[in-house]
């Protein structure tokens, strides 16, 4: 997995699935439409989808993605071109959904205190090393496990299963 570089958008603790992608948009299936509503319910971030650039990172505090099992909360960020979520902790179902959709999630202690919105990050998903190029600080996220990396490299669980069945 290659080194990633992008700008950070820092959020707080307990960013739940309704803040990331509200329940009223669940019937949407068009990726472009879904992407428009990413983070819309976070106060002050209503126009996040217009401000974020492809390759940027979402950085958050504890318990990112708590709540519903909706995969839209992963897909809206993925479709928007966000490179991944780096949070102090990520809720169980969100974490699985992200890996299973080939979307990078990393858990990194204290990240929301060590990174400011606008900081430039360099992330090595393989080792979990995160360099804050703006402050010069280095942080260490828990690296992905073997199976997680395998699923990510295939692009998600569906693709992973398809390749196993063909293999």
């Amino acid at each position, binding site marked *: 997995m290659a080194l990633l570089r992008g700008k950070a958008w820092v959020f707080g603790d*307990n960013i739940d699935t309704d*803040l990331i992608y509200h329940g*009223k948009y669940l*019937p949407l299936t068009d990726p472009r439409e879904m992407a428009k509503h990413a983070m819309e319910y976070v106060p002050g971030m209503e126009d996040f989808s217009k401000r974020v650039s492809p390759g940027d990172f979402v950085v958050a505090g504890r*318990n990112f993605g708590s709540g519903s*099992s909706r995969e839209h909360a992963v897909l809206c960020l993925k479709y928007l071109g966000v490179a991944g979520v780096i949070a102090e902790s990520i809720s*169980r179902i969100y974490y699985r*959904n992200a890996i299973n959709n080939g979307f990078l999630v990393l858990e990194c202690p204290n990240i929301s205190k060590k990174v400011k919105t606008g900081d430039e990050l360099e992330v090595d998903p393989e080792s979990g090393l995160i360099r804050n190029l703006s402050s010069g600080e280095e942080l260490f996220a828990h690296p992905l496990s073997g199976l997680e990396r395998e699923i990510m490299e295939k692009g*998600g669980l569906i693709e992973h299963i398809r390749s196993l*069945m063909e293999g």
Partner: protein
Amino acid sequence: MGMTFAEKILAKKSGLSQVKPGDVVTVEPDRVMSHDNAASIIKLFKSIGVERVWNADKIVIILDHAVPAPTDKHALNHKEIREFVKEQGIKNFYDTDSDGGVCHQVFCEEGFALPGHLILGSDSHTCTYGAFGAFSTGIGRSEMAAIWAVGRIWLRVPESIRIELEGEFPQGVYAKDLILRIIGDLGADGADYRSVEFSGSAVKDMSISDRMTLCNMVIEMGAKNGVIEPDDKILSYLDGIAKSEFEIVKADPDAFYERVLRYDLSKIEPLVAKPHGVDNVLPVREVRGVRINQAFIGTCTNGRIEDLRIAARLLKGRRIAKGVRLIVIPASWRVYKQALREGVLEILIDSGAIIAPPGCGPCMGNHLGILAPGEVCISTANRNFKGRMGNPESEIYLASPATVAVSALMGFIADPREVL
């Protein structure tokens, strides 16, 4: 070394003699459940390239998130699900008719939630079935599509927390207040990825409905599952309705728990979770007087006959406050019919409540009671996230059916003990 419930069942289902937290096992679920999101699972399933589902009898689909369909998009989703279940021979399908209701309620009433079963659902509140001694947890729709295709999934063996419950509830205090207390103490991520076992003498005294309320809300502190060891109450309930054979799985007495917590029920008081977090828990008396526009009694947490009876007892012969809308949604049509027979619905209607058809209703902001900007709702549901009921400028307080009913009566948040 003994094993916890989670360790024991995951070892058994993966054919291993011993597992420990952190191990990753591959299992075949005994049953899987999906609701309206089956529509997107169908698309993912088809993209895998498999013709037939792995086992049509093990798949249960219950429409509840938006029934009857409020928009053309919802209607199309339902139509695609109807075509798919027919094509695949999926018999356990609950459509928009009087066999249906909220998926978790119907799943339990129909005898699918069984002791020692491993059940996965594409809904976060699948953890409810732990009330029957099942290991049940929520998964995403890609995972569900993969299970439909190959019948297997990977699960990480969780660490376990045991919560021992003793004593009796004081008057006006219910299982909802207890689980709010626990979530308030542990925090919204206090049990993240953990298995939560409820035990102690107070659990044995609890009704099945109360046990479902406890297990239903463990996800609100991040837990993977919640479970209660099945007893005679569960076995006699399942007698004659169990959809298949089952074998009880119990934790070993010498199992290791990461944490053991104890609660004395006699020390719990009526509580609310304030906007916008389920762990933002305070005694009702500290928010007494907060004006409400809407009160909602229903959902997989508190929409059962026991809950409606509590509300009816408090509202009988009384009229709810002017300007307050009281929306009651029985969790299933079975609950609806029972409440109809007992005269519970008539009491509620006479008090000014309106009764909506069983389903999730306004819980996640789909329909049947969306809030306007600036409005406040007190609800028996399980989530009060910002905007959950359809508007980011509205506020949701979570409470027991008694607290919600009394608040509807007063027009502001009030303690049920004031009326009892």
